């Protein structure tokens, strides 16, 4: 029986790290984009411009909140809160480490060890549509409405491919619990290759990865906020802290997606061949948390790299990719996985 204060400590630490990381990624994105475009980027405030985050936060807090007269004010206020709460909540079921011995208790490094982890995440990502589409509708602005509509259609289209690519992982792991899925990946395939789902389900990995880009509205799928055609898309009419919440939600979503990719396909907190190192359990647990963070950082870095490398899709291309390429491929992946499991087990 783990006392309440340890649970609370876990929640506060994870929430703090998640929020700090989301703020840090906004800064990193600007520095990396500057690096890719051969610019300098923000480097004046503090060491290497690191305090730019604080400066931005103060600026957002001090800005006037402009709500158009014709807008639906209540929905306009609620929409960013939906986005941010869903972006944060999804992280609650992701295991960021194995167990650790803390103050004499065996603490599992996951906030809520629910037995339907995957279903919870899928439900939450589906709810994410509401924040964006309500924001687009309530602003009473043509750009916002178009952005919101595009976003709803895009999110539901790619959600199918995302759900179907997870099916393959579930058939291998036979559990909806995310910690079980990670445990299943700690084995080895042929002696030297870890049984990460990246190697077991390569097609599912690619489909999930592409769908994750679409689900987080990141380039090359950022049609909902395509600047040259829609000004700012669904957040055209947002300013001040409410705009800040949308930005924050986007980056928190990016981190959560990266954590999900890591958990489902990259072995979660597992370090290959670390079983024979012979380090103490406490050090091992800390190393595993570190490994999880490193894997998530690599995926986040990849997200940022792709944004500044690949041009934006046209809307019909986006729909074609979602419906005519990813959906048939993911159905084929499910059938192929089923056939492979039959052949191996017989």
């Amino acid at each position, binding site marked *: 029986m783990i006392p309440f204060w340890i649970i609370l400590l876990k929640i506060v630490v994870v929430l703090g790290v998640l929020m700090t990381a989301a703020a840090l990624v906004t800064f990193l994105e600007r520095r990396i984009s500057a690096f890719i475009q051969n610019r300098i980027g923000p480097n004046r405030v503090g060491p290497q411009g690191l305090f730019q985050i604080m400066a931005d936060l103060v600026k957002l807090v001090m*800005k006037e909140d402009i709500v158009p007269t014709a807008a639906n004010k209540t929905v306009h206020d609620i929409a960013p809160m939906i986005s941010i709460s869903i972006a944060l909540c999804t992280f609650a079921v992701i295991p960021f480490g194995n167990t650790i011995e803390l103050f004499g208790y065996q603490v599992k490094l996951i906030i809520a060890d629910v037995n339907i982890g995957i279903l919870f995440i899928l439900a939450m990502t589906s709810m994410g549509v509401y924040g964006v589409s309500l924001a687009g509708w309530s602003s009473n602005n043509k750009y916002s*409405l178009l952005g919101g509509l595009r976003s709803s259609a895009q999110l539901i289209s790619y959600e199918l491919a995302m759900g179907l690519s997870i099916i393959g992982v579930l058939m291998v792991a036979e559990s909806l619990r995310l910690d079980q899925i990670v445990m299943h990946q700690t084995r080895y395939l042929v002696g030297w290759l870890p049984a990460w789902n990246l190697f077991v389900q390569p097609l599912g990995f690619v489909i999930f990865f592409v769908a994750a880009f679409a689900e987080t509205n990141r380039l090359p799928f950022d049609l909902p906020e395509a600047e040259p055609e829609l*000004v700012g898309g669904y957040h055209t009419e947002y300013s001040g802290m409410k705009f800040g*919440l949308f930005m924050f939600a986007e980056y928190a979503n990016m981190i959560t997606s990266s954590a999900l990719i890591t958990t489902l396909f990259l072995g979660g907190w597992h370090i290959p061949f670390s079983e024979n190192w012979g380090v103490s359990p406490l050090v091992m647990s800390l190393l595993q948390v570190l490994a999880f963070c490193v894997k998530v950082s690599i995926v986040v870095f990849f997200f940022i790299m792709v944004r500044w490398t690949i041009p934006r899709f046209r809307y019909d291309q986006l729909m074609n990719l979602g419906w005519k390429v990813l959906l048939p491929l993911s159905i084929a992946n499910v059938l192929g996985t089923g056939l492979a499991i039959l052949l191996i087990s017989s």
Partner: protein
Amino acid sequence: MLTEFGKILIFFILGAVFVAGGLITSWILRPNRPYPEKNRPYECGEEPVGNAWVRFNVRFYVIALIFLIFDVEVVVLFPWALVYRQLGLFAFVEMAVFLLILIVGFAYVWVKGDLDWDKPKPVVPQVNRPMQTIQEPVVKNEPVAT
């Protein structure tokens, strides 16, 4: 005893406290000087034309309908995937038949062209009132002196 979903609730409440803190701080600190021009919907500085709550392309609706069918399919697949290894060949054939029926439906939608997000043909707007007759300048094809 705190259930696992209770922990998610605590996580959610603490997150909400952070967010509310930000919003309330901003509410206290920020200026509030609205005037009609500032609160107009943004349309690149032009006067807004009409209301934004207009009818939109019916394709969004069609996509939502197709999504609904396939999303139910995914939901049916989840329990199947969990017990697949125990049921073996029987489960595979069952699900192959199920998927086949859906693939036929998918192929139908594809052939009907409901998945094609083609560009709409431009329709020249018709105006009810008579057009003002404009004197077109007469172009004379006079031979150019060489």
